[in-house]
């Protein structure tokens, strides 16, 4: 058993499962948004605004946003442990990724709820 403390869930199985679940959420969200844009070629601001005012859409978008955070964290954590061999550099990169993802989540919540 290899011990480490910086991965997402500290268990390989948990990280692997979350990576897949978040991937499914992200693909469903992408398909939905692309489909919506294709089916509504003459999209107006009001229509777009009312879509994002619906609670289900906010839940779906927040889910997608959290999935982006989780998915990219697990992915970039893997990349950093593959290619960054100096502990200090790796830890700095991981901290930076964590910070950026946190900023995006908070900022995304503000955007979604129009705060």
């Amino acid at each position, binding site marked *: 058993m290899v011990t480490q403390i910086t991965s997402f869930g500290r268990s*390989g199985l948990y990280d692997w499962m979350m990576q897949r679940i978040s991937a499914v959420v992200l693909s469903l969200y992408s398909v939905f948004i692309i489909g919506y844009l294709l089916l509504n070629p003459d999209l107006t601001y009001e229509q777009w605004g009312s879509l994002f005012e619906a609670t289900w859409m906010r839940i779906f978008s927040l889910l997608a946003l959290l999935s982006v955070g989780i998915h990219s964290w697990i992915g970039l954590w893997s990349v950093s*442990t*593959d*290619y960054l061999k100096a502990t200090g550099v790796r830890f700095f990169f991981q901290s930076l990724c964590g910070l950026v993802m946190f900023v995006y989540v908070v900022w995304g919540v503000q955007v979604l709820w129009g705060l």
Partner: protein
Amino acid sequence: MLVSIYRYNPEVDDAPYMQDYEVNLPEGKDLMVLDVLNILKAQDPSISYRRSCREGVCGSDGMNMSGKNGLACITPVSSAVKNNKLVLRPLPGLPVVRDLVVDMSQFYKQYEKIKPFLINDTPAPAIERLQSPEDREKLDGLYECILCACCSTACPSFWWNPDKFIGPSGLLQAYRFLADSRDTATQDRLSELDDPFSVFRCHGIMNCVNVCPKGLNPTKAIGHIRTMLLQRAT
């Protein structure tokens, strides 16, 4: 035919280099790469490589032939030559001892980690532990591994983390014991594998399947291990 060989003798050379040799191959015969090496060894006795059974059973002469890992003794020259040139390098990713000889310690250390022996804490029967033909069949495609290291040294995940990722060869063997009906340590074995490196560093690129000289499928075995871990935890 031109043969380019990776040469490195740490006692003499500052850095590895490629040395070219011209070999006259007999007409109408497709030699194996190992035969070519033997011809060259007669010309230049300083060329070093491992070999033993010369029939793909011992796994000693794993090397990188024109970019693809394999056993030199069962790889025909015709399939390894590219543009009338044969390039021979040691297995990638492992420290080179000399020329085509690599230090396999890291590879064996990973093999050791998965406890490659049957563990059974029930009293031993008088004759032998019996297994149904169906249970025995589950070990097919697993027990044939000869530990030549062609797969693990073709795996980028093993190149970057040879101390943490068990590698395709070790994981194929791990599943060989997980799947064995006579083994009682399944839960302990699975617990040892549930971290982000040991198994989950495999991203399923199947380089291992592509190079295995015995035609085995480590990626499939790794998939089975994942399923076992998932079934245990959900």
